[in-house]
C-alpha cells in the first residue's frame, strides 16, 4: 500500500520556565492512502500535540525540534509558514473537539464554508454556492438551501459538528486530522457523526487520523492504532491485533480498565498510580512506575521502538505473552 504520510523521529518540545516538556518525543508512524489511523492514549499522552505538529500549528514556547514529516514525499518540517498555509485547509485539514467553539459565531455557515473555497479553488460565486449546498447535503443537514444563511448558534451540537466536517471536506482534502471529534457529543449523535465521517473518507478516498481517548470508538472504525503514553508511541498495529493480542502492559491495562457491557466483572482492573509529571519523566521506560510486569532493566534502560512482528511495533523490554 502507498504511504500518504510518513513521520520519522518527530520531537515537539515545549520550553517553559519550569523546564522542557517533551510532549512528543521521537514518534515514528505512517498513514496509508485511504486508511483510518487511530491515535489513543490518556490525557497528556501527546496525542493532540502530534496532530497539531503534523500541520505545524505549534506556537511558542512549543517547537518542533527534529524529525521529518513526509507528506507525499515532501518534508513539511522544512516548509515555510507561507507554504504551509497552502497545505492547511486544502490537502490536510483538521476537525477539532468542540463544535461549539470551532465555528465563528459572527459569520454565517455559508461564509465559513466559502472561506476555504475562495482560498483554495477558482470557483465563481454561483459555483461556490452550489458547492456549499452540496456539502451540507452530504453531511446530512436537512434543508441545506435555507440553513446556509444561519449562524452557528442556530444549530445543535451534532449539527455544528456536521458543519465543521462539511468545511473540512470542502476542497477534497487528502488527509483529515480529527482531534476528539465526538467527545462533546451524545452516544447516538456520536454514532451518526463517526459513521458519516467513515463513509465520506471511504467515498473520497482520503485518509484520516482519528485522535481519541475512547478505545471502543477506534476499535470500531480505525484500520490501525497507535497507542501513546507520555509523548511516545508504545504500541502500534492493526486494530484486531491491538484489541486481541496487545503486547504492551499499558495497552493491556487500558483495555482491561474499561467496563465491559458483555462481561460482568465485580472489580475493574486498574493501572496503578498516575501519569508521571512531564517535567520529571522516569529515566528508563516511561511506564516503569505503573507497570505490573516491570523488571530491573526497565528502570534504567529505555526500551527501543521495534518491529515485534510484521506490522506490529512495540517499545517494551518484556512484551506480554498470550492473548488478552
Amino acid at each position, binding site marked *: 500500500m502507498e504511504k500518504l504520510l510518513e513521520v520519522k523521529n518527530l520531537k515537539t518540545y515545549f520550553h517553559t520556565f519550569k523546564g522542557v516538556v517533551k510532549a512528543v518525543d521521537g514518534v515514528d508512524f505512517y498513514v496509508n492512502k485511504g486508511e483510518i489511523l487511530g491515535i489513543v492514549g490518556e490525557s497528556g499522552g501527546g496525542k493532540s500535540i502530534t496532530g497539531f505538529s503534523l500541520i505545524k500549528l505549534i506556537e511558542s514556547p512549543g517547537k518542533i525540534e527534529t524529525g521529518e514529516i513526509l507528506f507525499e514525499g515532501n518534508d513539511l518540517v522544512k516548509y515555510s509558514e507561507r507554504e504551509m498555509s497552502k497545505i492547511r485547509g486544502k490537502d490536510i485539514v483538521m476537525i477539532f473537539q468542540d463544535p461549539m467553539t470551532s465555528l465563528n459565531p459572527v459569520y454565517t455557515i455559508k461564509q465559513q464554508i466559502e472561506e476555504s473555497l475562495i482560498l483554495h479553488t477558482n470557483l465563481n460565486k454561483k459555483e461556490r454556492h452550489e458547492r456549499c449546498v452540496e456539502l451540507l447535503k452530504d453531511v446530512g443537514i436537512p434543508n441545506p438551501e435555507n440553513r446556509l444563511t444561519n449562524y452557528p448558534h442556530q444549530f445543535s451540537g451534532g449539527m455544528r459538528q456536521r458543519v465543521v466536517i462539511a468545511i473540512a471536506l470542502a476542497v477534497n482534502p487528502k488527509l483529515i486530522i480529527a482531534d476528539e471529534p465526538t467527545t462533546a457529543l451524545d*452516544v447516538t449523535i456520536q454514532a451518526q457523526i*463517526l459513521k458519516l465521517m467513515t463513509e465520506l473518507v471511504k467515498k473520497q478516498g482520503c485518509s484520516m487520523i482519528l485522535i481519541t481517548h475512547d478505545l471502543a470508538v477506534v476499535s470500531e472504525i480505525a484500520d490501525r492504532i497507535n497507542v501513546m503514553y507520555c509523548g511516545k508511541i508504545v504500541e502500534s498495529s492493526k486494530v484486531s491485533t491491538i484489541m486481541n493480542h496487545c503486547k504492551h502492559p499499558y495497552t493491556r491495562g487500558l*483495555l482491561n480498565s474499561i*467496563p465491559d457491557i458483555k462481561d460482568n*466483572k465485580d472489580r475493574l482492573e486498574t493501572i496503578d498510580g498516575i501519569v508521571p509529571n512531564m517535567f520529571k519523566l522516569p529515566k528508563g521506560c516511561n511506564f516503569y512506575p505503573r507497570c505490573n510486569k516491570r523488571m530491573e532493566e526497565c528502570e534504567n534502560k529505555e526500551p527501543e521502538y521495534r518491529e515485534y512482528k510484521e506490522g506490529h511495533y512495540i517499545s517494551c523490554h518484556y512484551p506480554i505473552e498470550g492473548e488478552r
Partner: protein
Amino acid sequence: MNFILDVKNLEKRFELTSGFLNSLTFKNGKLTKEKKAVHAVNGVSFAIKKGEVFSLVGESGCGKSTTARTVIKLYEPNNGEIFFEGNDITNISRKEMLKYRSKIQMIFQDPYASLNPRQKVIDIIMEPILFHKLANSKQEAEQKAFAVLEKVGIRPEQAYRFPHQFSGGQRQRIGIARALALEPELIVADEPVSALDVSIQAQILNLMMDLKEELNLSYLFIAHDLSVIKHISDRIGVMYLGKIVETGTTEEIFSNPKHPYTKALLEALPKINGKNMVDFKGLKGEVQSPINLPKGCYFCDRCNESLDICHHTIPVEQEITKDHYVSCHLYKGKDNE
C-alpha cells in the same frame, strides 16, 4: 419495603419569562400574555432501596442532573413529593432541611471546579464536620478528616496541600472524602468519573464500590456512559426529555431493553471488537425542545416504531415483567391480550 429515597411525580420547571412585561407577546393584532418555561423534569418517580445503586442515564439535556439537584433540594420542586427515609422533605424549609443535609451528600462532576482552590484539603474536609457539629473540638474534627482521607487513599502528609497540587483522580478522591466526612447514608454522584481518564476512572469506580460495601451506602448515580452504569448499578432509570421511560434491574435493561429509546442507546454504544456503532441505524431528528413539549409521547417524533396513538396520548408507565417498568404504547396491546 424500606426505601431510603422515594420520589413521586417530581416536576421542575425553569421560568424563562421573568416579569410581567417580558411575558407579553404581540400576536395576531392582539397583546397576549404568555409564559415560557423549560420543562426540565416532567413527572419523575423512582425509589432507592437501602444499600442500592440506582442510576439515571440519558443524553445531555434530558434532566438527569436537574432531577438529582431537585431531589436534594438544591432546586425547589414545582410539583411532586420527595421522601427521605419515610419523611416528607418536599416542602420543608431550608432550616429544617439542614438536619437531612448531612445524611445526603453529593459528589460533583468536575474535580477541578468543585474544590475551593484557596482552602487546604484538610480544611475542605473539616468544614462540613465542624458545621454540622459532628465533632466537639477542632482536634477531633481533624482526626475524623484524616480517617476519611485515608479511606479514599490520600496520605496524611498530603492533607495540608492545596487542590491544585493534586491530579484529577486524586481531586475526585478528595471530593468523595468530603462527601463521606459526614457519614451520609445516601450519596448523589453526578457524573463522578466522566472527567477522568479510563485508567483513573476504573480506580475511582472501584473505590466507590468498596466504600459502598464498607459503609453500607446507597447511591443515586448519574452518568451518560452506559458501560460505567452497567458496571456500578443495581437498577437503572433511562431518562428522555425529563421523563423516565424505562426502569429495571441492570441485567434486565441490558439483556431485555423494551423502550425504543433504550434500544437505540444500547445500539449506538461503541464496543471493543464489535461493529455495534457502525451498524447503528440512527435516530431520526434531534431531541425536542424542552420548552414546547410534544403532545403525545416525548420520543414519538424520533421513534422508528411509532404508532398513531403515540402522537396524541402520553403513554403510562406499566410493569412488563417484575420490577421492569416501561412507558411506551408498543406494549399496551400485549397487556390486554
